[in-house]
């Protein structure tokens, strides 16, 4: 077993044990914290979806919020109208989002760089309106959205709702990251990356570029859709206006900050944007009360400044930066 595999396994074991320490450290392992970590897990799945497309296949998307919305609404409608259990909505959302992503990938084949970014940006802007469309109102609940129930703890396990939600998200995340790692490490994964690095050469070598690009679009959408479905269960509520352009910008933040083309980076990116989102309010209070400035700091100011700063300072994101630092340290010692 290689070093990095040991690390990952150790972290997974740790992630399973820590919530059980709740009776010992009720202050540290609170329900609220567990819920926060669950949202981080969901975020990192969504960022991983975007990363599969942009980081590993070289297709840009500024509209992944759309697939997140499709996943969330698929799950919510299934739970609300058909009483499908929450766990069964995950594969359903994956299938629906794969199809939607694949279909969107078809016109995307004709678009490169800026134009694909433009088309997906337009998609992100239009999503809330599409969700409010009158004919869908019976299903989507229109502007009001859909109110759901939180997942119940199964088999009479002695866990709180938030503890169970955490485990559920964690298991889904592990399965998805394991699948992604295997995919990328296979013939198909190498084809995806070849298309990103040398499109023409990949095409000439006989890789079916159109097929790979559209299927990657579908897989990427399915990942982000699963994250959306998880979020619908976790928050127990969906509404159109929470799926606007700024959701897609958050995924982009996670992608760029974590590291484009890095699995570990997707986790870091997801953790990061949830953290900033959650600490913006306390930052604002700090600025208002301690610095005395009449200024509401929004998370997006931080996001925007960071996006630009990272492009200048750490184009490979946190994961890339850590790796470079590690390499330097090793180099200095040797």
């Amino acid at each position, binding site marked *: 077993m290689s070093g990095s595999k040991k690390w990952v396994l150790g972290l997974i074991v740790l992630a399973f044990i820590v919530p059980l320490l709740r009776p010992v450290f009720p202050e540290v392992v609170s329900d609220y914290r567990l819920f926060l970590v669950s949202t981080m897990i969901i975020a990192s799945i969504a960022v991983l979806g975007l990363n599969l497309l942009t980081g590993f296949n070289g297709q840009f998307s500024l509209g992944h919020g759309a697939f997140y919305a499709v996943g969330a609404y698929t799950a919510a409608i299934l739970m609300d109208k058909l009483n499908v259990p929450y766990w069964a909505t995950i594969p359903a959302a994956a299938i629906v989002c794969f199809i939607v992503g694949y279909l969107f990938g078809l016109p995307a084949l004709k678009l490169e760089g800026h134009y694909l970014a433009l088309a997906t940006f*337009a998609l992100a802007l239009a999503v809330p309106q599409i969700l409010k469309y009158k004919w869908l109102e019976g299903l989507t609940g229109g502007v009001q959205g859909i109110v759901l129930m939180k997942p119940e703890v199964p088999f009479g396990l002695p866990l709180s709702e938030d503890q169970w939600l955490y485990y559920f998200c964690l298991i889904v995340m592990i399965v998805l990251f394991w699948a992604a790692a295997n995919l990328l490490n296979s013939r198909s994964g190498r084809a995806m990356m070849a298309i990103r690095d040398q499109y023409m050469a990949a095409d000439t070598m006989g890789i079916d570029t159109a097929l790979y690009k559209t299927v990657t679009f579908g897989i990427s959408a399915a990942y982000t859709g699963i994250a959306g479905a998880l979020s619908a269960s976790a928050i127990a509520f969906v509404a159109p206006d929470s799926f606007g352009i700024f959701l897609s910008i958050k995924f982009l933040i996670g992608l760029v900050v974590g590291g484009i083309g890095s699995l570990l980076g997707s986790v870091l990116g997801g953790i990061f944007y949830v953290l900033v989102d959650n600490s913006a309010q306390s930052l604002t209070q700090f600025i208002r009360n301690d610095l005395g400035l009449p200024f509401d700091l929004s998370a997006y100011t931080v996001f925007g400044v960071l996006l630009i700063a990272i492009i200048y300072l750490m184009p490979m994101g946190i994961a890339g930066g850590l790796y470079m630092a590690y390499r330097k340290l090793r180099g200095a010692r040797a």
Partner: protein
Amino acid sequence: MEQFLQQVASGLANGAIYACVALALVMIYVSTDHINFAQGEMAMFSTYISWQLMNWGMSFWVAFVLTVLISFAMGVLIERLILRPLHNAPVLSIIVVFIGLLAIFNSMAGAFWSYLIKEFPSPFPKSSFGIAGVIGPHQLGVVVVTLIVLGLLFVFFRYTPLGLAMRAAAQNPQMARLVGVRVDWMLALGWGLAASVGAVAGIMVAHIVYLEPNMMGGILLYAFASALVGGISNPAGAVAGGFIVGILENMVAYAGNQIEKATGVYIIGNGEKLTVALIIVIFVLTVKPAGLFGRVVVKRV
């Protein structure tokens, strides 16, 4: 019939706004090959500046002129400070920087001026302006002002040495540099002009959509559609595209209303405006990427 004319007229007024923003997008695209996703938010920020100036007691037109000048400086600064160092960066980096700017402008406007919707005054006299029953005073004013701005820009690019230098820098940077044009500064000036035109659009539209940090989202989408319909590499095409899309937008909603009246079936209305723009964007991009008046780019491989 009168209702139909009304729809066309208000389509023209919207179209004038789209034409301005689309022109701003095209000006940056032609000279740098970048699509400025932050164009709408920059215009929104400029509009807030003019609101602030008026709040400090300036008259509308003084604030208007000052805002256009401030926006010009803002555009030049953004190009010089933020985009210049990324001259050779990959496409994704540039897109990310634009999205960063978008987030910064949006949240700063919310931070300085709050997210509450503000009313924005119209400078055009209510009486004896406009054509009764067809076009309102503000809408007519918007069309007139934007046409003046577009005319000035045309004269500038067509008949002044500086305009010629800017066109040269955009078309063939190497040759322009050889004959002594400072290409770097021409790009910065282009950004300044784009920001100014965007500011005009923002100030003109704010009376219609009200002033708030997210006011330009839909307009930017329509401006994208306009620029694409007209051909994103053609400034005159972008202006034409703006008017075409503006009228089309209202016609679609009008047709939807008529269908609903006639058959009672709701298909499309004002609630689907952004969806219509999305369909236009994707349709043009996939079917005719050069737009109506654009040049077909043949890539050599």
